[in-house]
């Protein structure tokens, strides 16, 4: 882009905050009641990461990867491609990245069985569990909790498996728990990139929530870059 240094972050914002927030309301109404099974699957993942299961042919680790992959594909198709792209053409370029993330999760987690989601008391385990719990339980409440300020109803809640931010934050949390070595960075790249994109969007909109995806990304990276404590027990 010519003279790109003359552009501000806001110059890339194509829509008003009102349109952006109403989009979640519209989307929730359109996919209702899918939020319920999405949250139920999230709750099942929670049970499994606290107490991993192993059946004769299959372990819960591989199922967690499948559920996560399904969430990424679904968000790519239903939210990014069909909804968000109507107000932000850039979303059509992001949707394939979400599909790629799903393929990586399926390949590395479900087929190769390289992910082990058992929350332990390491820094990474605790941070991961906190991020996952946050994405599942607290993130949907951000909209109604700040509603008195922003005027957004519970219908605009951003839910895991339905909206991109909680899906990305949940994935960061689960990968903090379940992925090690170089493979972790491969799987973290797209969720981290999305958190940065989301931060930039919210920041350009002047929304105070912009710090949420950025903090989530920061915690996921920090807990991983802290090898000794990261892999050691908290007590």
């Amino acid at each position: 882009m010519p003279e790109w240094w003359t552009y501000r972050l806001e110059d890339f914002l194509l829509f008003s905050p009102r349109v952006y927030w109403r989009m979640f309301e519209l989307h929730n109404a359109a996919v209702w009641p899918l939020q319920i099974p999405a949250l139920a699957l999230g709750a099942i993942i929670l049970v499994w990461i606290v107490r991993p299961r192993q059946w004769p042919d299959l372990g819960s680790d591989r199922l967690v990867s499948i559920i996560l992959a399904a969430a990424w594909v679904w968000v790519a198709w239903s939210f990014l491609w069909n909804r968000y792209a109507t107000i932000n053409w850039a979303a059509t370029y992001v949707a394939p990245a979400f599909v790629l993330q799903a393929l990586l999760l399926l390949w590395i987690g479900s087929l190769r069985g390289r992910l082990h989601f058992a929350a332990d008391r390491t820094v990474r385990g605790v941070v991961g569990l906190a991020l996952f719990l946050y994405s599942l339980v607290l993130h949907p409440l951000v909209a109604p909790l700040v509603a008195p300020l922003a005027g957004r109803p519970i219908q605009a809640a951003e839910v895991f498996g339905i909206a991109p931010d909680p899906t990305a934050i949940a994935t960061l949390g689960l990968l903090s728990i379940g992925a090690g070595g170089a493979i972790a960075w491969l799987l973290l790249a797209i969720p981290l990139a999305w958190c940065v994109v989301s931060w930039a969007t919210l920041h350009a909109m002047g929304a105070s929530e912009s710090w949420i995806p950025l903090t989530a990304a920061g915690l996921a990276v920090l807990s991983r870059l802290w090898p000794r404590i990261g892999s050691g027990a908290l007590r």
Partner: protein
Amino acid sequence: MTTTRRTILQAVLATAAAAILPPPLKGAAQGRPPATKPIPSTGEALPVVGLGSWITFNVGDDPVLRDECAAVMAAFFDAGGRIIDSSPMYGSSQDVIGYGLEKLGRPSRLFSAEKVWTSSGDNGPAQIEESRRFWGVPRFDLLQVHNLVAWEEHLKTLFEMKAAGQLRYVGITTSEGRRHDLFEEIMRTQPLDFVQITYNVVDREVEDRILPLARDRGMGVIVNRPFQQGVLTQRLEGEPLPEWATEIGASTWAQFILKFIVSHPAVTVAIPATTRVDHVRENLAAATGPMPDEATRRRMAAYVQDL
């Protein structure tokens, strides 16, 4: 009998409406049509205030907001507006404009101003055709090369379309002072009908060279970002309008700014964007009534600068 009943009903509704609605602004109240200026290349008259669509009309599939945009368009045409400006860059705005036009029964006074915005000249025609389908118009009145992207290839396409009768006017755009050197170079060498630039009471760089050049070359000038995307109107909100603003018929800052812009001899039309019916009325009303002369224009700029 029917007539009497209808007359009474109308009177009742009018009274009710008068009680609910804020009083219309000066100008609109008297139903005065907006002032027009001739497009230099043809003499066709264009009302001096138009309508932009960046951000304001990008509302996606939201049915409530689509209808709000259609209401803004309805008020725009009601007040005598003609030119609506959009771009493939503006998300769903083109589609929303098409929706509004359809809902309003395709107003014949529409002057459609679109852009071509793709880095490949080869993709230009397909993009223009897609835009045309969104608007649902047989052809565009004006097509502009957005921000000079691939301008050589696109201008070739646009001049060919114009020669073939598939387009009436050709232009180029920039904003916020970007690439003015190249912009002037193209103005000097290409037979453009329109140029689109940023101009308002504080962003006045174009006064030095581009506006005089447009006059010399007989090109129409479309002014974008008259309110700095709302930053300027918000900044001035708390400030008092000078008493002499009434002399030029400006009762709000938005009108003050618009009158400053469209009274420049080289400017053809300003295209403020809005999501609000009251604002579009206010903006169109700025195109009516007295306009500042050169001395008053200087006074206006000085007044804002001193705030």
